């Protein structure tokens, strides 16, 4: 007699089939002393600041996998809608998929309301989804955009709580960046001052936190204009070699040269195009 699960049609969404098996495997592996490979985190510094006519979002570009740098130049500022962008810290896959899902949902929503989407809508959608999964989706986000009510900046934590503030930082380098903000933030700054402030905050995170590094990306959002500056500043350029150890052409003298021609005939010629998309 088959059980209920066979009689009912399959549903989409998350499948928890392998969780028990994974738990048993993990226990076995830790008994032997090895480690299960860790998910790729972004171990990040992300921040945002509201200035007079809009806001500036900033992020570093390092993605880590345990103690190794997995990606030296990853892009952490994700597109949500033409006037809303979101920086993501935490597990890289989670932030990526979450922002893509919310971006699609916002697009459908704005098509059905035929209005530019609001930042509060994106915030509410993200908060409800993250709370539904009780923090198992490790995505800490800084959401910012300019809509009909002006510039808005939100920080969203993995369990689903949100804060609406004039300046926010997230990620492992958030304390270093927040120190810079607390020192130099002023209300109603000019765009250049805000960019310099965010750049310095991210630089503080890059130089003082192991999980952040490489370049600084900025995204300036104002009413009707988005400047995605990637990279805004290459704070950590890889060194250039000063000495060249290759020998010059002609260092080794040529004594004799003999050329043997191989007679090959072309039997068949096929062209196979590679899918490089």
């Amino acid at each position, binding site marked *: 007699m*088959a*059980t*209920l*699960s*066979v*009689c*009912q*049609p*399959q*549903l*989409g*969404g*998350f*499948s*928890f*089939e*392998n*969780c*028990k*098996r994974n*738990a*048993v495997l993990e226990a076995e592996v830790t008994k032997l002393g090895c480690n299960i490979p860790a998910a790729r985190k972004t171990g990040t510094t992300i921040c945002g600041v509201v200035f007079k006519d809009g806001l500036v979002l900033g992020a570093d570009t390092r993605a880590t996998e345990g103690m190794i740098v997995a990606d030296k130049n990853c892009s952490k500022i994700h597109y949500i809608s033409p006037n809303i962008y979101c920086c993501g810290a935490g597990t890289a896959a989670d932030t990526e*998929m979450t922002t893509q*899902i919310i971006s*699609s*949902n916002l697009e*459908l*929503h704005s098509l*059905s309301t035929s209005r530019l989407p609001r930042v509060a809508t994106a915030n509410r959608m993200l908060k*409800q*989804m993250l*709370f*539904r*999964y*009780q923090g*198992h989706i490790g995505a800490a986000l800084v959401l910012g955009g300019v809509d009909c009510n002006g510039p808005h900046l939100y920080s969203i934590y993995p369990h689903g709580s949100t804060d609406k503030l004039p300046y926010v930082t997230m990620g492992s380098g958030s304390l270093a960046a927040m120190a810079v903000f607390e020192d130099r933030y002023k209300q109603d700054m000019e765009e250049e001052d805000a960019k310099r402030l965010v750049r310095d905050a991210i630089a503080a995170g890059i130089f003082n936190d192991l999980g952040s590094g490489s370049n600084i990306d900025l995204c300036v959002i104002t009413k009707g204009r988005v400047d995605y500056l990637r990279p805004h500043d290459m704070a950590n350029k890889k060194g250039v070699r000063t000495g060249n150890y290759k020998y010059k052409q002609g260092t080794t003298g040529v004594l004799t040269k003999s050329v043997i021609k191989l007679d090959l005939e072309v039997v068949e010629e096929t062209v196979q195009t590679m899918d490089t998309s």
Partner: protein
Amino acid sequence: MNTRGLRSQLKDSVPVTGMGPQVGAYGVQDTLRSGFSSVKNELLPSHALELSEKNFQLNQDKMNFSTLRNIQGLHAPLKLQMEYRAARQIQRLPFLQSSHLALDTLKGNDESISFEDILNDPAQSEMMGEPHIMVEYKLGMM
């Protein structure tokens, strides 16, 4: 919608049942996927989210209907549920893929994308249900 008073609606949420014997393809315990059969395995879910995800849509609907009943009166959820029941009947036999277009439009699922649409798409599942058993179950003969 998720911020409505959860406490007051808690008595309406779907009751939790055990996980049951995890039977695989050949009617034997599926050890690879659900572990050894034991009482603990049958009672506890394999992941903290398993129960809440299984009943998420049901719980949401119950909460929405009961709030709607409190605001607009009994007629509102009655009419909606009648329409859902009618739309649910427009589908193929259970082991074939039906599009659920009318039901999705009523529920508003045609204007949103979530993990149900991206992960584990039932249209692309590797195993097909056993036709006879599924139809018998649907007609209530089992």
